């Protein structure tokens, strides 16, 4: 596909105004009339070199890196609704690279490195904020498990610290240190972890990709695949047929449905995960905190809302809504950990559909069908992976070989037994 490298004719449409304080002030004087669309709302062409199904963070990041790194800009991103309407807009915005396994850690650390340079790369402030991620432990066994993880992180050059209870108390004095059912013994801290503004990540990638000539096509649902001699050569959509040299799927919660259109059965189950946001309050929680004696994690957005979540609802579903018992379970975790937020009110809760793989780790690989590539199985850890997922999927699509840090994310590992199970839960997604 080298012939498309540097194809400047792909940069059609309008001249994009750079985002900067200078332009912002200049525009303020003229009522902000000159800002154009952040991305072109493109109509589908009849053919592309690469078609990406799914206009979420991963799909848009893939398109961005295809154009930027590999010079492939004759690319369409097809989104059935509005961009970012799936899990990119339904997560708790946490970014971290505190992974244990050698198959995972370098990938997530690469993602963290990309996060750290994202704003300058995209010229878009996605509010990447490294305020720290603290995983609390409540027993000696849990401490040892975290020590093992922290050591693995340090061996790959990732920052990690093991805190004792006193250090945690200094950091978060409002946690329950007195009457807790499961006393806090300490925590594993990654200071470089934190949060990013999830919607802005989507828009930033869309804007940057569009600027390089990528067509972002909203309200365009894939309804089937076009096959010729066993190879997939295009897609049928609600906006007509589109042919493509290669087709990449990055549709998260819709993975099993879209794969079914291609006749693929994948080792993925779809589960509901809820997330919650509270009313905005003045700064209370500095970074991200996870409870080790229940399933609960929390941070505070720049706007002031507490953003938190917990366990899966525990049944297969495509409905983007959750149920009350899980809401109660999550809030019980919240109150057990930080009873000072008892009077803070839950403003909104929503459900997303998670593409749970059978070992809890993702898949970035070719499929058995020529022409069709898969990016899936993110479980509920997809957001933090967005940049590296895009980077590695773009690499795979451009070069037909896996990127070094994503080599373990093979689709056939479930058959070969080369599993990547961080938690040792096994093929039971409802127990993740």
């Amino acid at each position, binding site marked *: 596909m080298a012939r498309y490298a540097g194809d400047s004719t792909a940069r059609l449409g309008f001249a994009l105004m750079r985002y900067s304080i200078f332009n912002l002030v200049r525009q303020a004087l003229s009522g902000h009339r000159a800002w154009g669309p952040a991305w072109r709302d493109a109509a589908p062409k009849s053919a592309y070199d690469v078609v990406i199904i799914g206009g979420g963070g991963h799909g848009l990041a893939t398109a961005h890196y295809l154009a930027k790194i590999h010079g492939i800009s004759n690319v369409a991103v097809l989104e059935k609704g509005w961009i970012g309407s799936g899990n990119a807009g339904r997560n708790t915005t946490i970014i971290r690279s505190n992974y244990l396994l050698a198959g995972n850690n370098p990938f997530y650390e690469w993602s963290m490195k990309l996060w750290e340079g994202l704003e300058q790369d995209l010229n878009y402030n996605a509010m990447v904020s490294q305020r720290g991620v603290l995983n609390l432990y409540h027993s000696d066994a849990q401490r040892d498990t975290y020590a093992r993880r922290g050591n693995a992180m340090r061996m790959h050059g990732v920052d990690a610290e093991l805190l004792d209870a006193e250090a945690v108390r200094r950091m978060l004095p409002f946690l329950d240190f007195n009457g807790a059912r499961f006393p806090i013994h300490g925590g594993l801290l990654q200071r470089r972890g934190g949060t990013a503004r999830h919607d802005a990540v989507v828009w930033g990638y869309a804007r940057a990709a569009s600027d390089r000539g990528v067509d972002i096509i909203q309200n365009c649902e894939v309804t089937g695949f076009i096959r010729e001699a066993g190879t997939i050569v295009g897609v049928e959509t609600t906006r007509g047929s589109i042919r493509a040299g290669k087709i990449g799927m990055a549709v998260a919660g819709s993975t099993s449905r879209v794969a079914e259109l291609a006749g693929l059965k994948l080792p993925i189950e779809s589960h509901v995960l809820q997330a919650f946001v509270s009313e905005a309050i003045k700064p209370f929680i500095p970074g991200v905190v996870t409870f080790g004696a229940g399933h609960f994690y929390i941070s505070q957005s720049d706007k002031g809302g507490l953003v938190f979540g917990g366990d899966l609802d525990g049944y297969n579903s495509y409905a983007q*809504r959750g149920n009350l018992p899980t809401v109660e379970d999550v809030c019980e975790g919240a109150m057990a950990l930080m009873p*000072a937020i008892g009077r803070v009110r839950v403003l909104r809760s929503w459900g997303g559909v998670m593409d749970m793989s059978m070992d809890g780790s993702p898949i970035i690989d070719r499929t058995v069908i020529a022409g069709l590539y898969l990016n899936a199985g993110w479980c509920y850890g997809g957001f933090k992976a967005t940049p590296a997922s895009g980077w590695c999927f773009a690499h795979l699509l451009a070069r037909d070989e896996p990127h070094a840090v994503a080599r373990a994310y093979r689709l056939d590992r479930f058959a070969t037994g*080369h599993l990547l199970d961080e938690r040792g839960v096994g093929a039971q997604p409802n127990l993740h």
Partner: protein
Amino acid sequence: MNASGPQESAQPNRLAGAGLIDRIRPLSFQFDGKRYTGFDGDTLASALLAAGVRLVGRSFKYHRPRGILTAGSEEPNALVELRSGSRREANTRATVVELFEGLEARSQNRWPSLALDVGAVNSLFAPIFVAGFYYKTFMWPAVLWEKLYEPVIRRAAGLGRASTEADPDTYEKAYAFCDVLIIGAGPAGLAAALSTARSGARVILCDEDFLLGGRLNGERYEIDGVSGPAWTRQVEAELRASPETRILRRTTVFGVYDGGMSGTHTFAALQRVSDHLAIPPAHQPRQRLWRIIAQRTVLAAGALERPIVFGGNDRPGVMMASAVRTYVNRFGVIPGRHAALFTTSDDGWKTAFDLAAAGVRLAAIIDARSVVAPVLTEEAKRLDTRVFCGAQVVDAHGSRALERITVREDAGRLSQLQIDTLAVSGGWNPNVALCTHLGGRPRWSDAIAAFVPGDVPRGMAVVGAAAGSFSLKDALREGAAAGAAAAEATGFKSVKHREPRVTDELTAVVPLWCVSESKTKAFVDFQHDVTREDVALAAREGFSSVELLKRYTTLGMATDQGKTSSLNGHAIMAALTERAIPELGTTTSRPPYTPVALAAFAGVHRGKHFKPTRLTSGHAWAEGRGATFMESGEWLRAQWFAAPGETDWLTIITREVRAVRSGVGVCDVSTLGKIDIQGEDAAAFLDRVYINLFSTLPIGKVRYGLMLREDGLVLDDGTSARLAPQQYLMSTTTANAAKVMRHLEHARQVLWPELDVQIVSVTEQWAQYAIAGPNARRLLERLLGDAIDVSNAAFPYLACAEFSWRGVTARLFRISFSGELAYELAVPARYGDAAIRAIMSAGEDFGITPYGIEALGAMRIEKGHVTGNELNGTTTAADLGLGRMMSKKKDFIGRVLARRAGLADANRAALVGIKPTDKSARLYAGAHFLTLGAEVSLQNDQGYVTSVAFSPMLGHWIGLGLLVRGQERLGERIRAHSPIRGGDVDVEVVASVFFDPEGARLQS
């Protein structure tokens, strides 16, 4: 309430005589430290208005002065911090706070004071601070984001302050079941409740307000010749007398969830039991979370009046027209002296007439419509009020409150009016939230220029204003009909009753979303300071889908969730992008309808009650022996038993281990999972779940077993005893007891339903004690006497028996975790306390020593026994050195997938022992193995340390670990790398059994 002027200097805006307040019960309260008086029946908002307070809060971004916009739970502006200390509640809507004696409230998001807020300087930067401005800047230099920009943004954002102390109040949860749930006790809901209750059906009637009546309390309606509130009281009396009717006031039904009965749903409701009191009465919760399961639902949630977007529409003094009526009629408060009305609906005119009736002459009625029903204009003429039809309020002016408006008259002439209150009516939006929580989409109605319920949850009828029927007559008729239909549908006979007499009303509306000529900031979302220009910018930048508009501008994301703002924003977007409003659709409405305190969802499950605390029946005995306990899942287990004067844990454990290994010790092992497995196919069942054979196990014998998950990795280990031909007793690890039970249930019910096998967890039914050490047999001989022969010949290693001991069924197993001659004695749990005391007394002469799980852990590491640290869900049987246990004669769960290349790989890490080269060095679990001299990197990772202990028998630290090709590397020196804790230690790889490798002691 004619012409009674304001009275009482403390409450200058209080009308004499009027309203549903109790004037003989004055209540004093504080706002921003200043003392005021109101009456029982007031809200904080009505009491503040009565006192002449207009400035109540500051907005989120620009810190604009804000007053009271509404009289209900949709309030976006009048948010306060209520109460203080550990009970401080941020962002509380003054419009729903019931006044109580001593109430304390403070304004929020301002500094140093509400009147003089430095943050208001943000308004000067408003041209820069447009929607999404932060996405376009603060990128350079990158390091300043966390150090400067973000902290400033975070401090400026947020509204009120949360308490930093634990919430001292309690919360309850309850379930309720009924035939018909009626949501909303306005006219439609009351009519529905009456007809349902008269049928004898079980009815639950909920309303978020503390008074039933809804709009009947805020309007001057007459029903059957009596006032709205009087009619409400009659209905309430009848409902209260109806035995099957339950009325829940102060209760918001905030969500609809899947799961109910016979295809219906679960409704979640929050009852504010004590929020109207200073503190909850003794033994009463603050709030109660209801899960209501109803066969039929009548949604009578009313409608929300919508503002009009025009310049300065956020100034304190600009108020919803219906809210003005509520303050006048229900609370006897006039919001101001010089008022005008800006309306685009007939309904708004009522405000003019009600104010006139209260003695306030309106400066003007400005109706955006050119043609208005003559009956309205004639009435206005009679009241001597100027009427401008086809006119618009272009801008509202004032500094901290409304002072003046600019009106564009029909002919285009601009005029100014000096007023302090502007009532605004832009029409009404039916309150359809609960119709949409399960994914139903509302439908656009041109007739009322608003969305009405589309697909509704099964079994739900929507009536009255919630359905878009805005007249009182329609509300009463629809409510009665839906109530009767719901009663019939649930098997009751509805009783026909006369329709009440009410007057006709005019309800016409022509929408005016936005006044285009406004010169000043025109707010769409008040709390989040989203202006008309922000919506326009979003349109220009391509954020034109309603969901993108919401996310980009934060329109509808404030604490009111867009109740007063979303539709206006969407309508403006529709106009800008030349689409019809229904084409844009709606954003998805998410529960809760109004925000709910986190603690209410948690209920009693906090602090020590977060999860049950499981105690063994020997717990009291262990406490008496001075045990230190630790959590083991939900169990509390004795960690060690300190002797008098002992403080160092290592000294204690060393003593305990040596005592066991040289004499005899006892340990409570009741927490291990016990599963009773019976049936004709019990043996076959165990053969399928364990990797080794159990059908060949003789009766009266115990065997160690290992089970795999379906993916071929180890699930758990333990022993199973064959008590009878068709009865086995399985033991599991403490941690995996529930997991194994679930696994077996799945296997029994789903995989092999044809097997005749029954399983039941008996973990809690039996107390079990390990008695270990060279003197264990002698102790048991003394303890059990003739009950059972425990000689080595009669009761060898791995024997088991059930027998009668002192009239109680007891079980004895000769198994050992410590590696010593050991037995486990089980008795029914109710005899557990007696049993341990009997064991101790029988062991006195042998110097019996109770030991905890730390000593147990040290001994099992000395023996190389695996436990949870090694059975961590990622190890195979072969990894643990147990590969040869996998039977080749039968099939079992996990057999096929365990053969996968990745699981059978010789390069996998295998269980080994380690000991430090320098015997004084301490080992740490979680350290990673590196070949000596190898560079530190994940690629060079050779495995990790799973368990460590100080071995009292060897006198140095020992450990177990999983090492790549470990079994081939015995004798090799490697490095245990632990940068995060303890640093690096050189260790020697050894066999995993450190003590008595031949196992001579346990056979003895």
